[in-house]
């Protein structure tokens, strides 16, 4: 695994915008002046680790349900049974993204699983693929995300539900772009789609249905909006009354919860892909203190020998924290890369790399394209 300086495409801005990546220049988010180079064995290792970790996570979800451990994850009680039902019914899921620490030499380590609302999807599936075509067309890339998404939509188990709605927040262009890319993949799978802002979703109390702005019933909706917020909001209780199919499904709320990390360590102690993690703060000297619910690195604190060495501020942490052994990320020219490893359905389907100049990867990180070759 190498970080290589390469020549940027002179027309990269126009090319990125032509595929919809409108925010590529914000905070120099897209950086193709460098790229990461892997060999085939390293890619195979990442793929295998991702599939194994996803299987382990499904075991952990079943364990939480069977042993009624929802309270430890701060899940409101009224959602315990619906989550269990959702998992028992194998409710449809489209995607998730592991964040892995990896240096090409040691085995990958799971940092967390954003199984509910992962972003960076368009840049992973499309933007870095076009970069590869333009600059390294003879090499390969671990990225079949696009066709896996199209194929996964075709497995949605309902018929006759009309269109699929896609919800994102107002005033957030990154989320808007992400859901519109997902809409594109659903269209290619043969579905009719419609966007709606999260704030515009309506509730018709007369017939217990979620509705769009025309008051048409929403039967199926992909929501780029986390379950832990939905649980607590005014319409949260209505989820239990309605027949709307939500994507991602309710059971994914257990995986995006950082409480999954100590439970995985309990179930698979000393597994090479896991870092020791606990609910209690006194088991580790050097650790990452992570809120149960947090996004984009917010409110994570890093401690070495019980001394804080890094932190990212934010609004999270009211529900408490878990403690995960501190892992020294590899550093390349002062940059700390994190591997985002995509799961489409239940299958490892590609990676992306975001790197930051600090040890906590935040929403100010940079997206770096990658390729792999058999010649190194």
């Amino acid at each position, binding site marked *: 695994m190498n970080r290589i300086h390469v020549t940027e495409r002179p027309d990269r801005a126009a090319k990125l915008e032509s595929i919809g990546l409108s925010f590529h220049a914000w905070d120099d988010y897209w950086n193709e002046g460098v790229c990461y180079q892997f060999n085939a064995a390293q890619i195979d290792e990442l793929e295998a680790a991702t599939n194994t970790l996803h299987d382990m996570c499904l075991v952990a979800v079943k364990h939480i349900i069977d042993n009624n451990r929802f309270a430890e994850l701060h899940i409101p009680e009224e959602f315990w049974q619906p989550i269990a039902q959702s998992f028992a019914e194998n409710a449809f899921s489209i995607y998730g993204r592991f964040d892995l620490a990896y240096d090409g030499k040691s085995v990958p380590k799971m940092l967390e699983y954003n199984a509910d609302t992962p972003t960076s999807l368009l840049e992973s599936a499309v933007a870095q693929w076009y970069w590869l075509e333009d600059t390294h067309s003879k090499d390969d890339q671990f990225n079949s995300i696009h066709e896996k998404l199209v194929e996964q939509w075709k497995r949605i188990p309902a018929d006759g539900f009309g269109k699929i709605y896609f919800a994102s927040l107002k005033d957030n262009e990154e989320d808007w772009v992400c859901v519109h890319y997902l809409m594109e993949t659903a269209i290619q799978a043969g579905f009719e789609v419609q966007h709606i802002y999260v704030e515009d979703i309506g509730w*018709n*109390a007369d017939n217990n249905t979620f509705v769009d702005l025309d008051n048409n019933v929403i039967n199926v909706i992909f929501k*780029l909006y986390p379950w832990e917020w939905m649980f607590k*909001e005014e319409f949260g209780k209505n989820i239990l009354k309605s027949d709307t199919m939500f994507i991602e499904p309710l059971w994914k709320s257990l995986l995006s919860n950082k409480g999954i990390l100590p439970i995985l360590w309990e179930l698979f102690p000393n597994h090479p892909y896991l870092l020791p993690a606990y609910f209690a703060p006194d088991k580790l000297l050097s650790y990452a203190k992570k809120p149960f619910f947090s996004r984009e690195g917010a409110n994570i604190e890093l401690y070495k020998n019980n001394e804080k060495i890094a932190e990212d501020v934010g609004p999270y942490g009211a529900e408490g924290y878990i403690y995960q052994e501190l892992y020294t990320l590899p550093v390349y020219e002062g940059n700390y890369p994190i591997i985002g490893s995509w799961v489409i359905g239940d299958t490892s389907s590609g990676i992306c790399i975001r790197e930051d100049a600090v040890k906590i990867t935040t929403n100010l990180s940079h997206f770096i394209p990658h390729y792999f070759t058999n010649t190194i």
Partner: protein
Amino acid sequence: MKRSKLIPLFMLGTLLSGCSDNKLDTDEIEVKQNTYATIADCQADWGTEDEACQPQQVADASSVQGTTTTQSHGTFIPVIMYMGPRYYYDRSTSTPMMITSGGTVKAVTSPIASHISSGSSGRAASVSTASVSRGGFGAGAHAAAGGGGHAGGGGSAGG
């Protein structure tokens, strides 16, 4: 090969200017929809733009003023009525608003605007209402806003 063979995109590149479309943003409104006995009545209220008047079969029109229901051997024969667009009165701007068939919201400029403002329903034979509440999702993001991010603005729900 572990890479996509081909990535066709049909929609994305054309949508970059579309992320600020004017959509309904209100906590609770009473959305109404008028039913008309004839298309002439409907278009007299709403005009002919935006496909405002749509025919609809009504199984039992006996309760609709100005119509008659045809009965044959005990079976009601459906009657064609005409539905105007959904609309509501925006109290914050004192403006009657309509929801187009595409889901966007615009001010009513057709003759019925003055009727809506005065609380009447124009030439309609009947009016149906649906009380739909909105804004019940989204508070978590707005509480979390301020962290910035590439978007530099509102709260992000993705990660």
